[in-house]
């Protein structure tokens, strides 16, 4: 009871604030622009993800150490409270998030119309158009000689959408490295001349408590998104590294993509 009493004045204050902010919202200038940040926070179940040093357990009961965890986020849409969408311009809508590179984990979208955004939607991977377009248009993180190095299959032209590598005592010994390596390289945009596997996935994320990102000229809110790397190997298919340590462009990769589709979650929104 005591705590409740203590909270009461704050609740009142909060309610007042909400009312005040509601008033403000009624008068959002349609030409006002602001920024929003998508922060990708890689975790493993309840823990912060740490490359190399920490041993994690998979649902199949196997131990793993993760040495690399990278994925493409593209074609971002922000959904307003009325359900209408702001589509981030195509040329600014490709990001490669790398666990080894802290800066890559914070995506700042600028020139976003002021509004209250309840959800963020994006593609996990790279669309088929960008997989097949002229090389001179592939700049930055889409340039196979620069940003996309290591995330591009040259023998079967196309981007790797998600790459997780590491070691596991359950994986077979790799003769080249003398390590028990596992490699999940997931891609496949559906094929150009012939139809083939399509591992392009979409995520649509909303804060569980309904918190919205209130973009204003003066306010730069953040969607804080946790990305649970354990979901790559665990889910509708619990992947065993004894049998599938190397999963690249093959039929089994579809299971891994189905697993990791649910690895993203809005933890909270900072306004």
């Amino acid at each position: 009871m005591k705590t409740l009493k203590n909270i009461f004045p704050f609740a009142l204050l909060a309610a007042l604030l909400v009312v005040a902010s509601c008033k403000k919202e009624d008068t959002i200038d349609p030409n006002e622009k602001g920024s929003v940040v998508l922060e990708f926070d890689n975790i493993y179940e309840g823990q912060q993800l740490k490359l190399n040093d920490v041993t994690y357990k998979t649902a199949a009961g196997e131990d793993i150490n993760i040495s690399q965890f990278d994925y493409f986020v593209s074609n971002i849409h922000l959904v307003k409270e009325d359900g209408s969408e702001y589509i981030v311009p195509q040329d600014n809508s490709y990001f490669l998030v790398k666990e080894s590179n802290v800066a890559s984990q914070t995506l700042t979208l600028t020139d976003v119309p002021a509004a209250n955004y309840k959800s963020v939607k994006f593609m996990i991977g790279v669309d088929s158009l960008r997989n097949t377009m002229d090389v001179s248009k592939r700049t930055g993180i889409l340039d196979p000689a620069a940003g996309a190095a290591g995330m591009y299959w040259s023998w079967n032209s196309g981007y790797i959408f998600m790459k997780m590598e590491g070691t596991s005592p359950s994986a077979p010994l790799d003769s080249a490295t003398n390590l028990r390596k596992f490699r999940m390289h997931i891609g496949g945009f559906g094929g150009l001349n012939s139809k083939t596997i399509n591992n392009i996935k979409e995520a649509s994320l909303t804060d569980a408590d309904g918190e919205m990102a209130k973009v204003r000229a003066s306010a730069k809110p953040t969607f804080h998104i946790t990305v649970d790397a354990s979901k790559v190997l665990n889910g509708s298919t619990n992947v065993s590294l004894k049998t599938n340590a190397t999963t690249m462009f093959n039929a089994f990769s579809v299971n891994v993509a189905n697993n990791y589709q649910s690895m993203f979650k809005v933890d909270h929104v900072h306004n």
Partner: protein
Amino acid sequence: MKKVFFLFVLVALSACKKDDTTTELTFVKPVHFPEPTYKFENNRITRAGFELGRILFYDGDLSRDGSISCGSCHLQSAAFTHHGHDVSHGIDDRIGSRNAPPVMNLAWGKTFFWDGGVHDLDLFAIAPIENPLEMDETFANVVSKLKKKAVYPPLFQKAFGTTEISGPLVLKALSQFQLMLVSAESRYDKFRLGDTNALTADEKTGLELVKTKCGNCHAGELFTDDSFRNNGIQHFGDKGRFRITLNDDDAYKFKVPSLRNLQYTAPYMHDGRFLTLDAVVEHYRKGVRQSPNIDPSVSNGISITDDEKQKILTFLSALNDENFIRNKEFSEQ
């Protein structure tokens, strides 16, 4: 497309006026060939671009230790194949699993590699560079090595108007060189363009036989329809097109190769298993093996008499193009 070519010629002419020290260069479609598939509007051929591409093609620094260039496996004297090697031989003497096809008439290619894994010539070179069995280098590192070589910035300036060396420009230059490797001056071509004496009577009969017995797949002026087929050779581990599409209907299918310049490109098939053209024709006559997705036009073998075989082989020799393997413009300078 016609308009595009017209444009090339115009550009070439105006370039000549500005700078008469070098002769400008343009891609000219042989009149009897179909329209090319390459999108020249994204990569206009110039002499400077072609020459830069040629230097890159013969530069060992595209490999990890400087030992292997594109030209090491694609030798002009062998119509840009790896003469004498059934499967390719790369860095540290590592052995690949497939036979190097000729780098020839690529402007008409719809896909590249025996399995068609690459759909755009401009993306192609990354594959051999990054293949651990071939050049074993990363493309990003190749670009940074080229940036450090003093010869390149002025060449990129001439070709693309910038000294800033980037991956896409390296690829575009390599494409320019490879696109100009057109082979269309065999005796067959002369015949096709109206010189009725260019072929002997036997060769003319051989041509008709190839059209009826092989033309289902080795079709048109390029002698390939660029499709993927299982031609009934015995299959081992390599499932060909299946590797790219993961579609069971594509297992054991390989891209139909051209029949041009065969004299220079032995051995034959995707793994270089046949050493002679005689052995290839014997395969179609008597050696066909049943396996999944075998093409109906070969599943019972192709009926060819001994006399017909001789005429087919004679005709195939009329598809050799000496100018192609001797053209100095294509050689390392």
